[in-house]
């Protein structure tokens, strides 16, 4: 038995040839970047386009129809708080959807974890212990689902459908029939109700823009040091400017006074949940696109057999994704509980899960696995929340809301299916 050692990658020593045709991103100039993006769209990879265009169209639509009620800073702040719960659950779902799996239990897992949070807080535990218990609950249920899916190979649809039913019971059992648990902890309540001070808001914008520029600049320097050509500088700096303008505009608008009676209580600043979401977007995007684990998630979703033959721990990757999904559902539970000031047997129920799936799909995550982004899921959550927020202003009754949201999900899934077909035949 010989002891195998890890071999460093060593390309075979073959004649020196000009390799510059091969290296580098496909697009090195702005013109090439545009051409490359159009080719990607034509190839079926719509990415963030549908979410961004959808959001702009919806904002314009409601602003024209309801300028006085929809287009107010107070309503936009509301929109952020309404979107937050679904956004966090959706970020977790991206991991599961990337595998080509589904998690139908995420909504009620959010409710159950939120109930655990409420119960531990009611028992007098400090907020951080309650949050830990809540996250632990989410991770533990995610682990069980993941083990059943990864090792017994029960379809995730069935496993999570069982948990969807079972967790409703667990939620009832934790809360007690017909009851609700009030949340009174000021830290938990602050998460999805309070705002940053205007100064802190500007600091936040500065940190995000600076972070984007520094991270991008360091990556470009490192690439340049390796002797590789860089992608278009115009695209990079253009992205930084767009980011700065959009965030700056948001900070400015949110820092305006939006209270009905400012003399009684002032209401201004970026909702705290926004920077919280940005931290999660940055962290989870890093995990998905810059680590081996993230690469393996895409590989398992793209071709599980190829991943297995490459020595990737396919089952372990699947379990980890369900644990992440469960944990983020728990975060979503905290956000929803904070918003509602309470946990009830319907927390995380109703349309929560479907909205989260819709958010991910609208944001360009494929239901067939192998394609998706975290930021897309968050933009998708904003799209869904905008529909949810704007429609009642122009149409009465929840009937129309359900139908429209259902249609939007169907539309997104259709785009996904069609783009997949173009991608494979192209």
């Amino acid at each position, binding site marked *: *038995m*010989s002891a*195998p*050692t*890890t*071999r*460093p*990658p*060593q*390309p*075979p*020593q*073959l*004649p020196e*040839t*000009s*390799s510059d*045709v*091969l*290296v*580098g*991103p*496909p697009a090195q100039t702005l013109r090439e970047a545009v051409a490359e993006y159009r080719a990607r769209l034509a*190839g079926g990879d719509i990415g963030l386009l549908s979410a961004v265009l959808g959001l702009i169209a919806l904002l314009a639509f409601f602003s024209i129809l309801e300028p006085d009620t929809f287009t107010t800073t107070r309503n936009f702040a509301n929109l952020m708080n309404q979107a937050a719960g679904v956004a966090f659950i959706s970020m977790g779902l991206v991991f599961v959807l990337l595998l080509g799996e589904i998690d139908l239990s995420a909504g009620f897992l959010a409710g159950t974890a939120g109930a655990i949070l409420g119960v531990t807080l009611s028992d007098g535990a400090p907020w951080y212990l309650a949050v830990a218990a809540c996250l632990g609950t989410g991770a533990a249920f995610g682990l069980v689902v993941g083990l059943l899916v990864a090792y017994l190979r029960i379809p995730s649809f069935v496993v999570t459908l069982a948990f969807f039913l079972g967790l409703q019971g667990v939620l009832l059992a934790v809360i007690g029939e017909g009851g609700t648990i009030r949340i009174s902890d000021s830290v938990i309540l602050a998460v999805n109700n309070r705002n940053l001070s205007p100064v802190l808001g500007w600091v936040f914008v500065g940190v995000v823009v600076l972070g984007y520029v520094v991270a991008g600049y360091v990556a470009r320097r*490192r*690439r340049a*040091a*390796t*002797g*590789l050509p860089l992608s278009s500088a115009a695209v990079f700096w253009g992205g930084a400017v767009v980011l700065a303008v959009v965030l700056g505009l948001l900070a400015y608008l949110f820092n305006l006074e939006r209270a009905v009676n400012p003399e009684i209580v002032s209401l201004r600043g970026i909702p705290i949940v926004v920077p919280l979401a940005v931290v999660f977007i940055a962290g989870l995007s*890093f995990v998905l696109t*810059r*680590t*081996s684990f993230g*690469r*393996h998630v*895409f*590989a398992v*979703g*793209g*071709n599980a*057999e*190829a*991943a*297995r*033959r*490459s*020595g*990737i721990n396919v089952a372990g990757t699947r379990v980890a994704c369900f644990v992440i999904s469960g944990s983020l559902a728990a975060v979503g539970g905290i956000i929803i509980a904070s918003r509602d000031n309470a946990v009830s047997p319907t927390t995380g129920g109703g349309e929560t899960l479907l909205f989260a799936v819709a958010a991910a799909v609208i944001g360009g995550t494929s239901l067939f696995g*192998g*394609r998706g982004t975290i930021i897309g899921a968050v933009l998708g959550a904003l799209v869904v929340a905008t529909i949810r927020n704007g429609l009642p202003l122009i149409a009465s009754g929840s009937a129309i809301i359900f139908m429209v949201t259902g249609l939007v999900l169907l539309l997104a899934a259709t785009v996904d299916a069609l783009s997949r077909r173009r*991608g*494979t035949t*192209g």
Partner: protein
Amino acid sequence: MTPTIRLRGIQKSFGAVQVLRGVDLDAHPGQVTALVGDNGAGKSTLVKGIAGIHPFDGGSYEFEGQAVEVTSPKQASQLGIEVVYQDLALCDNLDVVANMYLGRESRTGIALDESSMERKAAETLAGLRVRTLKSVRQAVSRLSGGQRQTVAIARAVLWNSKVVILDEPTAALGVAQTEQVLALVRRLAESGLAVIVISHNMNDVLSVADSVAAMYLGRMAAQVPAAGVSNSDVVELITAGRSTALGVGVRDEVTA
């Protein structure tokens, strides 16, 4: 010269079905060994055993003269054994670099070291005199069949490999692309690798191989030098398990 891979008396069963019954095989460095045999003769099972996907039940497996027990694909790749499967085992949604480094990504700290991976991937492709790829950052879904085959082979040689096993590398290719891939196979052997090629195409086998190993019903009918072997000799070995012209073949009493 010590063979890179030396198998003796290899046994493998799936449940009650005995697929391999005492198979011998030698693969020498710098040589192309063609593995031929009819459907169900056990070629794929043999290759999967060498690669650690379905470990052998019995027999001796020597790698560079040392007895080894290969029980996982990771272990096989650590020894320097790479397999290019017929379906190529590429992830369509990932780019060329990501596919070449799949499961063995270079990192700096916890982050992927994309720059060094991209540079080495490009160097390897250039070293194989691959000119048909526009960029190593293209998604594999956008490549042609020949380009995909090239990426899969380049992935196999990226790792300072000692053995490269190719499963039907030309089955899905046209005439020109087949020529290119066969030339690539010869180049791999000339750079000192032990190359094992599974093929059904007798012309491919005889044009590229130094040694022909013919399997018959789970046994090795014969492993003979390719020089001086005719097309019909190989066909006879595959279909009857013996060759009267060469005076080799399985004997019926060798039923293990």
